[in-house]
């Protein structure tokens, strides 16, 4: 997190999200299969099972190539989401997850793209390894609350490091009910980040703002 003066917006990238009073949470959508039409019927369950098997096999194969000792399981399948989880020898976690989860994110994009080619429907793939996602979510929530407190007392905006759409959503959600601060996203992928701003000086007018 870095603090910046609320007034000094000259050096900041133009913000393209959270316009027109839309919820910043709703803004954090990650389109994995960009060629798929937006409106889709849920994929038939049999086919989703097959796609999930393919995704699992591919994740397992990638893990073997990385010399990481872990087994992949299918954690959940629903209408269009496949959740996979790798567990095993945690010494391989650094390689498989990468700095701030970037290796896991890269593998997730590749698997979603490859599996998405086998169907016209939109499929989303979510990967976890060694419980990383929940640990990361908890530390992001913790950080969000601490920084929100600083933002409120200092009256200064703070910026997060670059975050994935899912990670930004965690920050927005964690602070949605916290009074005195507002959040929005700014910057271009993959360097998009969250701005935590005092809400009584923020760009979105707050009817309940205190003087």
């Amino acid at each position, binding site marked *: 997190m870095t603090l910046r003066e609320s007034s000094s917006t000259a050096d900041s990238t133009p913000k393209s999200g959270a316009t027109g009073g839309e919820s910043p949470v709703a803004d954090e959508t990650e389109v994995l299969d*960009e060629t798929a039409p937006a409106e889709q019927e849920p994929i038939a369950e049999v086919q989703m099972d097959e796609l999930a098997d393919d995704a699992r096999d*591919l994740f397992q*194969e*990638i893990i073997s*190539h*990385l*010399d990481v000792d872990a087994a992949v399981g299918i954690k959940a399948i629903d209408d269009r989401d496949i959740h996979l989880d790798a567990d095993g020898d945690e010494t391989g976690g650094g*390689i*498989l997850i*990468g700095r701030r989860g*970037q*290796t896991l*994110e*890269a*593998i997730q*994009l*590749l698997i979603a*793209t*490859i599996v998405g*080619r086998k169907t016209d429907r939109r499929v989303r793939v979510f990967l976890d390894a060694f419980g990383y996602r929940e640990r990361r979510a908890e530390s992001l929530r913790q950080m969000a609350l601490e920084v929100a407190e600083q933002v409120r007392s200092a009256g200064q905006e703070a910026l997060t490091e670059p975050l994935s759409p899912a990670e930004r959503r965690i920050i927005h959600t964690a602070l949605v009910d916290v009074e005195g601060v507002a959040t929005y996203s700014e910057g271009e*992928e*993959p360097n998009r980040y969250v701005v935590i701003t005092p809400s009584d000086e923020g760009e979105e007018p707050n009817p309940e703002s205190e003087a």
Partner: protein
Amino acid sequence: MKDLIELLTRALVEHPEEVEVREVEGPEGVTLEIYVAPGDTGKVIGRGGRIISALRTVAKAASVKEGRRVFVEIMA
């Protein structure tokens, strides 16, 4: 590392039989040169370069144990 990139590239394109990955040693590390059918270049690059960037990230992870730098290039 080469095998992994080749496997992923084959799975991404329309013409997997035309995929070739060459490993070229250089002074700064190893370069993986990806050759695909002309119409498949975009599939390997992805919108905004997202796919090639993901391939580079994965190759980097695979190179950790080998202790050398790796570069991934799509050859047009």
